[in-house]
């Protein structure tokens, strides 16, 4: 196992900057998820660790070795590909044992080791089959087995679960989490599914347009999203965001928007600084922190009922406002709730997030910036 360090890594394809000035440190034994929308540069970042892409500039270290220009075969890494990349002309035993074959291991020995790993992954009985003769879930586990069959310093995953159906994906996710607890591998895991990142990561690097916008443990990303982009990407459904007019009066922050009432808030230093140039802020509230207002809430927002979805243990109530902006509440009840055409949602002051006009988080005083 080893740590990974990106020092000012930039990757360009022609003029297009896929990854821009990346500085990241991943500790030994950490499970880091690269999270972001499609095309933001996650795969490119991962492929640079693998050696399948060469950085345009910058330096990459695995452990203490500078691997920036090292061939993949010399990096002591394992990788699970999104399309699994199982060799179609080899049976499962040969597929899983291939890394050992390359290392000159004798056939009997490498097949025994492949079988061992396959048994752990519950595909041991399929060793004679060809990749085309097994299900998608089994193919996924085969590619995982091939990555685990030899000891590596770093394990890389490129959306390994995205080709599985929902139920299998949950199962495989649980298994990966178990594996991580078991062997404590250093892993870099690419996904566009925030739930996967939250479930697996020790730290999440949220990426947008080739840049890392926040790099923090999952709960930190959830509780204190660094930008509106992160707030909008993490959480299911994502955080509700609303532009508001802000002013400071009598030593308190007053927020105003149509059909919204917010109790005066304490003025943090960040807010004070942000309001020097502008009076516009963005207010954010997570759906799970909203409830149907019964009157007397400190803060409330009103709109027309747009949708009322039953999810089993919870309801998703969405209201639509005059400017077509929507606000969703996640209400934990298995009762059926009857709603009028006009709905008011209430929320507590402690659950308010504030962002400046550029989208950066405005921390409360005492909160780590």
């Amino acid at each position, binding site marked *: 196992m080893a740590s990974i360090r990106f020092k000012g890594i930039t990757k360009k394809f022609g003029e297009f900057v896929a990854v821009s000035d990346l500085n990241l440190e991943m500790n030994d034994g950490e499970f880091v998820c690269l999270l972001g929308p499609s095309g933001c540069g996650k795969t490119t970042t991962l492929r640079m660790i693998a050696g399948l892409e060469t950085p345009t500039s910058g330096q990459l270290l695995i452990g203490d070795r500078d691997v920036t220009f090292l*061939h*993949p075969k010399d990096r002591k890494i394992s*990788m699970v590909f999104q399309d699994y990349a199982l*060799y*179609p*002309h080899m049976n499962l035993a040969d597929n899983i044992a*291939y890394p050992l*074959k390359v290392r000159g291991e004798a056939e009997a020995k490498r097949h025994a080791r492949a079988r061992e790993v396959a048994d752990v992954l519950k595909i041991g009985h399929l060793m004679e089959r060809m990749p085309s003769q097994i299900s998608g879930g089994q193919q996924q586990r085969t590619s995982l087995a091939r990555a685990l069959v030899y000891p590596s310093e770093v394990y890389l995953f490129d959306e390994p679960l995205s080709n599985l159906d929902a139920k299998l994906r949950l199962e495989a996710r649980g298994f990966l989490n178990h594996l991580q607890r078991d062997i404590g591998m250093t892993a870099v895991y690419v996904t566009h599914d925030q739930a996967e990142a939250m479930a697996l990561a020790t730290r999440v690097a949220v990426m947008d347009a080739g840049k890392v916008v926040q790099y923090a443990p999952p709960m930190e990303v959830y509780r204190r999203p660094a930008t509106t982009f992160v707030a909008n990407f993490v959480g299911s459904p994502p955080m509700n965001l609303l532009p508001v007019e802000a002013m400071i009066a009598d030593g308190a922050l007053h927020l105003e928007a149509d059909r919204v009432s917010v109790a005066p808030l304490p003025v943090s230093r960040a807010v004070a600084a942000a309001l020097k140039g502008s009076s516009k802020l963005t207010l954010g509230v997570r759906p799970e922190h909203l409830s149907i207002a019964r009157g007397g809430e400190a803060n409330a927002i009103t709109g027309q009922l747009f949708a009322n979805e039953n999810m089993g243990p919870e309801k998703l109530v969405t209201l639509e406002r005059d400017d077509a902006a929507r606000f969703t509440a996640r209400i934990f009840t298995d009762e059926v709730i009857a709603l009028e055409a006009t709905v008011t949602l209430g929320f507590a002051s402690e659950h308010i997030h504030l962002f400046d006009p550029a989208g950066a988080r405005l921390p409360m005083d005492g909160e780590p910036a």
Partner: protein
Amino acid sequence: MTRYLGLYFARIGFSVATALIGVFFALPLVWFIFAPFNPRAELGLSIPDPFSLTNFEAVFQNGFAMRGLWNSLVQSVGGVILVGAGATLASYALSRSPIPGKSLITYILLLFSSVVSGSAAMVPIFLIINGIGLIDTQIAVILVFAGGLLPTAMFILRDFIDSIPKSYEESAMVAGASPVQAFFDVALPVIRPGIVVVVVWAFVSIWGSFLIPFILLRSSEKMPASVAIYSFYSEAGTPIVTLLAAYSLLYSLPVVILYLFVSWKFGFRFFGGIKA
């Protein structure tokens, strides 16, 4: 009712017409199968009576013709090896490397190849081969064929290799394989169906060619079957039908056998790999 009757007759008419066309094309084939066994074969179709192998006896005694079959085999196999190996390596490189304008390279080569194998280039080819002193050698024939067929073979194979995910070799390299190992262990087996197609096509092209060996070779003992077949013409230029028929059958057998072998062994599959 009359409408159905009309359809019915139209259907019959169509079937009769297609049957006639079918017979028209089948006749030469039937002749081709029967005539070699008929000691009195003529250009007309007739059932052999008696069924005999005397035509073949005469053909087997013609040393020039027999050596022709052997020479054809040498030239075809030699050309196929060059085309197969060259096209595989070249198209793999073209498909996987980030050379700018690589499509242009293939297209230009393709353009030149149709010139090389065309009769317009025969004089320059003759002069070049003469210049490097390879006139009247089998190797000259093999080289010219390889040069003429390579671009098309590369074009076909590159398309095929482009359709194979890079992640096969990438996963092999991440697992510790060198690029050469990854090519032989993983890429080559997956590309094989494409190579088979190219090999069969190249073999058939060389086996059937007349002009290039006719121009580049002098001595009769190096001529391939396509040229040697003229030994079954009389001085006056009229074909000796009986022997010609027997020899033609022998001449076509390797190609038929190759097709049968390949379709038994590989099934002429074009796309390998598993669904992602």
